[in-house]
């Protein structure tokens, strides 16, 4: 009969001190791989739209004509699919979480700078194969 089998655990807890990670007094525990948020660097983007077409949640919208790239962070699941697929490596994940917001914020919006003339429209693969 185990009348109070947990007594051992309880006493270990009492004498071992709390296991609590005292966030926010202490910083959150992070790992190199931690997928916090998606970061986009517009400089090298080739507007290939793979990120948009292969995004499982369709959080990314790329307009070739207007040369814009925008993401709804309140839709992004930070799966990193776009990061894996991006041929130009302009996307990566940071291990820092996004802050809460009081309102549904506007989407993160980027205008892609005009590339040097020789690169125009180059490197655009047929999406989605």
């Amino acid at each position, binding site marked *: 009969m185990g009348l*109070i089998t*947990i*007594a051992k655990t*309880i006493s270990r*807890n*009492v004498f*071992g001190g*709390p*296991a*609590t990670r*005292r966030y926010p007094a202490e910083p959150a525990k992070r790992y190199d791989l931690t997928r916090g948020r998606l970061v986009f660097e517009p400089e090298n983007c080739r507007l290939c739209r793979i990120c948009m077409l292969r995004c499982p949640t369709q959080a990314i919208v790329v307009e070739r004509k207007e040369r814009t790239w925008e993401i709804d962070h309140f839709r992004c699941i930070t799966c990193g699919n776009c990061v894996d697929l991006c041929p130009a490596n302009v996307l990566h994940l940071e291990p820092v979480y996004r802050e809460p917001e009081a309102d549904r914020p506007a989407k993160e919006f980027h205008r892609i700078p005009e590339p040097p003339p020789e690169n125009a429209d180059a490197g655009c693969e047929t999406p989605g194969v």
Partner: protein
Amino acid sequence: MIAWLYGIAFVILAPLLGGLVAGIDRRVTARMQGRVGPPILQSFYDVGKLFEKERAYVRASQNFYILGYLIFIAFSGALFFAGGDLLLVIFALTLSHIFLVIGAYSVTSPYALIGAERELIQLMAVEPMIILVSVGFYLASGSFYVSEIAAYGGPLILLLPGVFIGFFYALTMKLRKSPFDIATCHHAHQEIVKGVTTEFSGSTLGMVEIAHWYEAVLLIGITWLFFAWNPLVAVVAVALVYLAEIFIDNTTARAKWGFALGSIWLVTLVSTVANLAVFYIGGMA
């Protein structure tokens, strides 16, 4: 006259002490669970907040019953600390609980109703033990008056060990501690939501909380009586008893009401019969 002053002092100070005890309780519980736990004054924050909330109601009459609960529980405590008749204290305490139960009935809600029924079962389970505690005190000290029991020169605990065991067992239910927290428990996640207090919000709930504090102090007072001959021992003993209750709270699953009722009655019967029979056999000889 002094007696009345004690009573009044209880009415004023008991919430402070009770709230503090509740805070320490939560803190110790958290430590047993490997957590940091809330600030010691958390119970006061909670009640303070409840009184800041909107005054909403489900049935207009609910506050009347809860006020009755609060007033009578304070009254019975005051009577106790004024040195009054222990039986009368117990009856007043029962009356106050009936007010709580009626308050829960009055809101006509599924979970409050089940809570009320369970609270009644709880009262039914504990009532014999509490009455027998006072009988034990009477047999040992010759008086029902708290003042005279407290003034009894010897260690009552040595005369009433069985009664104390039974009382300790029932105290778990009175303090709403696991395994006998069948009606309302301090933790969330119960199948009956929050039992009797399910429908109470804001200040109504705040009053219930304060009443719990009064009750805790009153129960501590009754525990004290067993050790009253030496205040120092009493302080240590009461603290140990309370700690033991917290420990039991953290080492058991919640029992079902059938088991709770049966086991409390059984323990009551065995422990008090074994203990009190001594007085009767002694009295006959």
